[in-house]
């Protein structure tokens, strides 16, 4: 399985990867990182992702614009998306859900919470 993590902060990205790697040891999981919406767009054609995790506040194009793109794309619309944001972007998270994002997570979160939600969208036990 392959997931894409879109997050502009490198330490947050490292943190997310550590949690995901630790919580999904029993699966064969590959993580691809993108530091911006642009990088995410660039990397999409080259992988077949099973899930995408994205931040909302990012330069270039933000998480909402990315979700909108993905959920209106004939192929990518099938990839489940988890939006990771803080409570201050509550309204934007609501909008992401309206655009079709499957799951959301609010920072700060427990690592178990992230793993549980990720498993849910990946449909693995």
């Amino acid at each position, binding site marked *: 399985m392959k997931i894409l993590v879109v997050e502009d*902060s*490198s*330490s947050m990205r490292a943190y997310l990867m550590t949690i995901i790697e630790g919580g999904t040891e029993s699966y064969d999981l590959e993580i691809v990182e993108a530091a911006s919406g*642009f990088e995410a767009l660039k990397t999409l054609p*080259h992988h077949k992702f099973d899930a995408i995790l994205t931040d909302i506040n990012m330069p270039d194009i933000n998480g*909402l614009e990315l979700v*909108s*793109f993905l959920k209106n794309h*004939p192929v990518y619309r099938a990839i489940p998306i988890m939006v990771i944001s*803080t409570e201050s972007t509550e309204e934007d998270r609501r909008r992401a859900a309206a655009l079709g994002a499957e799951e959301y997570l609010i920072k700060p979160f427990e690592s178990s919470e992230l793993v549980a939600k990720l498993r849910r969208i990946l449909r693995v036990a």
Partner: protein
Amino acid sequence: MSREDDRARNEFTGEAEELLDTLSRDLVDFEAQGKNVRPELVNKIFREVHSLKGLAAMLGFAEISELSHNLEEMLDRLRMGKVAINRNLVDLLYDSVDSLNRLLLSINDPSLEGLVDLQGLTSRIHQVVSGGPDVKSDDALSSLTLDEHTLKSLTEYEEHRLMENVRSGKILLSVEVTFDFSDFDERLRALTAALIESGEVISTLPAIDATGGSGISFRLLYGTTLDEVAVSALAPEAKVVSLRAAKPSPVAAASPHVEVETPPGEPITASPDDEVSLRSVSQTVRVDISRLDHVMNIVGELIIEKTHLEAIARSLAGQRLISHELGKISRNLNRKLSDMQRSVIEIRLVPVGQIYSKLSRTVRKAARELGKEIELVLRGEDTELDKMMVEDLSDPLMHIIRNALDHGIEPPNQRIAAGKPAVGRITLNAYPQGNSVVLDVKDDGRGIDPARIREVALERGLITGDEPVDDTRAHELLFTPGFSTASVVSEISGRGVGLDVVKRNIQELKGSIEVISVPGEGTTFRIILPITLAIIQALIVGASSEQFAIPLTSVDESLRILAREIRRVERREVFTLRDTTIPLLRLSDAFGLPGREAEGPDTKWFVVVTRSGEKTVGLLVDRLVRQQEIVIKSIGQRLKSVPGIAGATEIGDGEIVLVVDAGSLIDEFGGRAREARALVK
């Protein structure tokens, strides 16, 4: 705490430091732009604080998280137009960033804990937030022909900006472009940069290729004062459509969200060739500077090995074939080593602007304490210097700026009387000059008055009553230990330091400092530094039976003269170089070595003309050996205080030579020359 958490925490301090640096720089721009601040900048500042908060909250830094959370809330209201921009807000932002910096430092240094008044800041933030203007909500968007889909894809902030643009009567346009997958990011950034010259790009929505090709389309919402025709001219590749409802609505049809039939599972792709290059997604790594030091040391040692090789090649001059081959290898090696060295040095270089933000914060504070108003102008922030040097520069620079504030800039009433603007101006300008970087700290104050310097020097017992003080001597006295009053306490270092310490700091960085002053018009302190300290170019010279290395940064030129060209003026040896009389110093004398046995009028000498600040001295040496790269190693504590020596280096063949510190040698020499002059009198 787990190892992963530890790693994340280390990573955090690095990234947080960077975020705060950028934030401070953005605040300087924010302050400069005043009431007409660009919404993009406000949003960028918001995003930076937002990122910081997210990180701090995740990793359990409670205080940073709390403060950045409150700040974020205030900035969110600011970008939504719910907070007024005024002096109070700017001060609060600066103070907050200052406190965040302190909190960050206290993570690794517990002695700094408790220095931040979190409660005070929080209540100031709450005051600003509650005092903001009410924003009327109206139905500004109904005048636009925006499809439901685009509206739904706007963040709350983007929606606010869209309404603001409508309310302020801007022309709202949809700008649609389709780019190739391989370079859409660059081209889109270029387009955005061109557009924001005359407006605001409110949102950038990607979509599958509207032309049915294999590229990617973008729809930009653009608020501007230009009309469709002008924007079309600006972006010829784009399809520009007005969004005002008065016109027929072409938007829905032109929407890039056209569904193109693509077989499932087959992603849109640029070309298979791109696959490899696009795989690595993140473009930066953060590296501990000590690891770079280590690499640099290895490069340095390789250079020494290369010098060995060259020495062998030279000693084999009799065996032509071997010598020729060895020479070729050593030249190749030399080229590769230079490449490698340059790359490593480039990695170490950071923009000087990194300390500008710290400086401007401290200057604002210092000016407030002194009750003076000044404008700090920062230029050349992109000029690059070795990371370690940049760190070591902030104390000396701060001291010079404080000095300018204290002594240079006059009180407002005096300034007005002198026909100057009431607000003083201090300009910090950094620019490259050959292999060096120059930093000018310039004030428009009263300038240095030699008579006043003389008074102070007399008072402190640094000179005798009959010594005349001209400009040069006055500037020299400024840097003499004991001249500055110990009551000046540097904010950054927390110690009482004088300009003599500044000079020593700069000399330790192998740099020089000079003063240019015009009475009534102002003073410039000019610092000249090598770009890096790790490896420097040096001239190897021979004096008596010894060899010495002279850093090329302090060498103006070297030339051959005959003994008869050396003249004596007041017991001092001099020679004339293009109409200028230059004092000479025999290097063998300076280090107490025996002189030449027989010296006739035709004895050949070499003069190495060295410069430190405004002073020039010709060093008389027996031989010029060669130029080479050296790695300066520090020498023991015992020799540290010996003037004229910067350290030692190995120059190949295992030979260790002393590195001449031209600056301190010239100072010492100047001192002795004065003693000699005094004796004559």
